[in-house]
């Protein structure tokens, strides 16, 4: 029971991170119908910015952890969203209206560009940081001495994700930007006829997705303490799986899918085998796409001719 509870906590933490990345996939897919293959690498860029910002702060002698966290959060988010904006502007916008695989191929190219750019400029070896936030509280204790730990870091991740998700839901449901975004999602041409600036809305979609991925990058940096230029690949695929599982195009679905994928991964490695946990994620992707392509919360897609 205690073991189960511990895996549950770990799984939820992972799931929160996957969910934040998955939102970027699902939003972009919802609005322009492409798989942003470079999104995983945007997340990796966020993680690297977090590492670099921590190193600089350490050099400057900032030891007060909350201040450092806020500064790093802002730096990573802002710079990562700049990357998201640029990628859309450079690699996707010129391709609107091109043949249907063109944006995907361009996105794959962009993914190579980003990961190799980081590899060349920062080196191929992985970067490890010392754990900054240690300790936690013991939730329950079993008679044979197995503590169920909820670390402060996990709490920070939960709270941040919750705050971001609330803010994000409000943004989509209540603001003019959210309205424009939903309008573009339904019918881009009609929205532009009614005075919605489609280009700007799409750009902002990428910026928001990248910002959330940047936060996820910071969380991974803190949680695992190790980043390298290739982490975006696997995390990207898993987050995409989460988006598909939840129903691509659906925002609550992305979060739900992320949490499910995190839980599956945690329980799979807890109870079956650690080696096959990535295979499990891929298998889920394939199974969902075959048996329920619309995901858990998605709407069926009608192909118009």
């Amino acid at each position, binding site marked *: 029971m205690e073991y189960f509870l511990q895996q549950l906590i770990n799984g939820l933490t992972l799931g929160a991170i996957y969910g934040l990345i998955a939102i970027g996939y699902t939003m972009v897919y919802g609005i322009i119908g*492409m*798989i942003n293959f470079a999104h995983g690498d945007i997340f990796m860029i966020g993680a*690297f*910015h977090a*590492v*670099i*910002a921590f*190193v*600089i702060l*350490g*050099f400057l002698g900032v030891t007060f952890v909350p201040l450092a966290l806020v500064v790093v959060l802002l*730096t990573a988010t802002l*710079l990562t969203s*700049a*990357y998201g904006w*640029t990628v859309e502007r*450079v*690699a996707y916008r*010129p*391709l609107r209206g*091109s*043949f*249907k*695989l*063109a*944006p*995907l*191929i*361009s996105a*794959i*190219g962009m993914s*190579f*560009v*980003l*990961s*190799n*750019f980081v590899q*060349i*400029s*920062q*080196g191929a*070896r992985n*970067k490890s940081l*010392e754990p900054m936030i240690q300790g936690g509280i013991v939730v329950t204790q079993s008679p044979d001495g197995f503590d169920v730990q909820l670390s402060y870091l996990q709490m920070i991740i939960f709270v941040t994700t919750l705050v971001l998700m609330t803010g994000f839901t409000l943004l989509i449901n209540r603001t003019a930007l959210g309205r424009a975004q939903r309008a573009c999602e339904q019918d881009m041409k009609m929205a532009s006829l009614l005075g919605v600036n489609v280009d700007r809305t799409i750009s902002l979609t990428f910026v928001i997705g990248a910002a959330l991925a940047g936060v996820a990058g910071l969380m991974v940096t803190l949680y695992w303490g190790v980043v390298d230029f290739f982490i975006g*690949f696997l995390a990207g*695929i898993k987050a995409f*799986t989460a988006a*598909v599982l939840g129903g691509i195009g659906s925002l609550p679905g992305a979060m739900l899918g992320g949490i499910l994928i995190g839980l599956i991964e945690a329980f799979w490695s807890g109870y079956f*085998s650690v*080696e096959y946990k*990535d*295979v499990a994620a*891929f298998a889920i*992707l*394939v199974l969902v*796409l*075959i048996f329920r*392509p619309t995901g858990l919360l998605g709407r069926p897609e009608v*192909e118009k*001719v």
Partner: protein
Amino acid sequence: MVARAEALAKPLVIPTLLKQSIGAALIALVLTSLIVGIKTVDTNEALSFTTRFPSVAWASIGVGLAYLGFGLVRSGMPLAGLIASLAVGVAQASVLLWGGPAKELYLPFEDPVVNWVVVLVAGVIAIRAALALRRGDGTGAAPAGTALGDRIARKFNQASRLLAPLLIAFAITMPFLPFADRRFVDVATLVSTYVMLGWGLNIVVGLAGLLDLGYVAFYAVGAYSYSMFATYLGLSFWLCLPLAGMIAASFGVLLGFPVLRLRGDYLAIVTLGFGEMVRLILINWWWFTGGPNGINNVPRPSFFGIPFERNPPEGTWSFHKLFGIEYSSNHRVVFLYYLILGLALLTCLFSYRIRRLPIGRAWEALREDETACRALGINPTNTKLTAFAIGAMFGGFAGSFFATRQGFVSPESFTFLESAVILAIVVLGGMGSQVGVALAAIVLIGVPEFFRELAGYRMLAFGIGMVLIMIWRPRGLLAVRDPTIRLHPRGGPEPEPAKP
């Protein structure tokens, strides 16, 4: 596309252009500020860093200038663009070539390759400016550029009727030419392997229009099935080759059957997942596949049963004894080269011929419009499945060759990167164009082999290339995308080309 062309053709006034260039430079500054400006360094106790701020400054100035240069050409001032870009390019190139005291003062980047990129970009701007000047108007550079590209591609494709036999003749005589030392033949063998993989994937991506990101899985299946048949059962290469192809093809069917109902981009991700799954299973199923160490001592190929050995056991033949020539270790290398060349040409011939069969036509039709195909009574699933299986089969052949050439296989050789390289070859060469794929493989695989300092930048260049090709010529550099058959023969009424 039209809207974009109009937007580009509209002359921009100088202040706007300057403002935009400064904006581009600022964005480059933001993007590079931390990633390039701060290099994290591992020391013994903790991560520390060194700074590279000059590179950041130069990078943003360079981006601003490049934007300004393209803007000048686009907005009808090609002369200014030509002069400016030539000045920058020549100055940079001369400093790089002759150096002297200027080398200390002015060389923007630490890495010579990046410094040469500056020259390259300046050159591209100069060429575009010169072209615009020759046309005399300087407006509408982008659509004219596409038309120019089309013209070049068309010329090239006409020439390729001549070029292809020449290339093949060169490939066949190559090992006997004076400059072909062992290393050269080795690289040629490697390039031919990728040419074959490219042609195999071309059947799936170029003809049938299915984006397969896990092609390396079939390569792996071929390599492992050959290794296992040969080491566990002791079968010969020529027996294993068709077996490996068949197994890879059945894996193709196995994967394709459930997923081919999916939309194009979902299919891409699922094939990617499949490729990774195969690799992970190869790593973790250690008692069967040897785990991360793979399978060693895979038998080397023999000349139809006659081994390449210096001292064959008493009473058996060896290659040099059979032909009565001096023993040389190069015989095997050259034989391997011919083996892969033959396999690759077989792939090429096969795809040329199958394009003219009903199934090949169905692939091309399916690539263009799936709904219409369905309405015409083509079964999309079966048609796609055939393409998948045949592409997989050639991947399996190439995999067997890879295993026999290396002498060992391990999961390390079958990462996503490998799929990506093969896909880049197909995309850059022009989906559907056989000569284009061959040339792309020569450039993308062969050139980095000889210029080692470029190897680190290889994937970066592939990525940039893929993005640029998608923007400039989405069907590939050399593709003109003529259908293999047409309703109205040349000279008759041209059907209106369909909007992509």
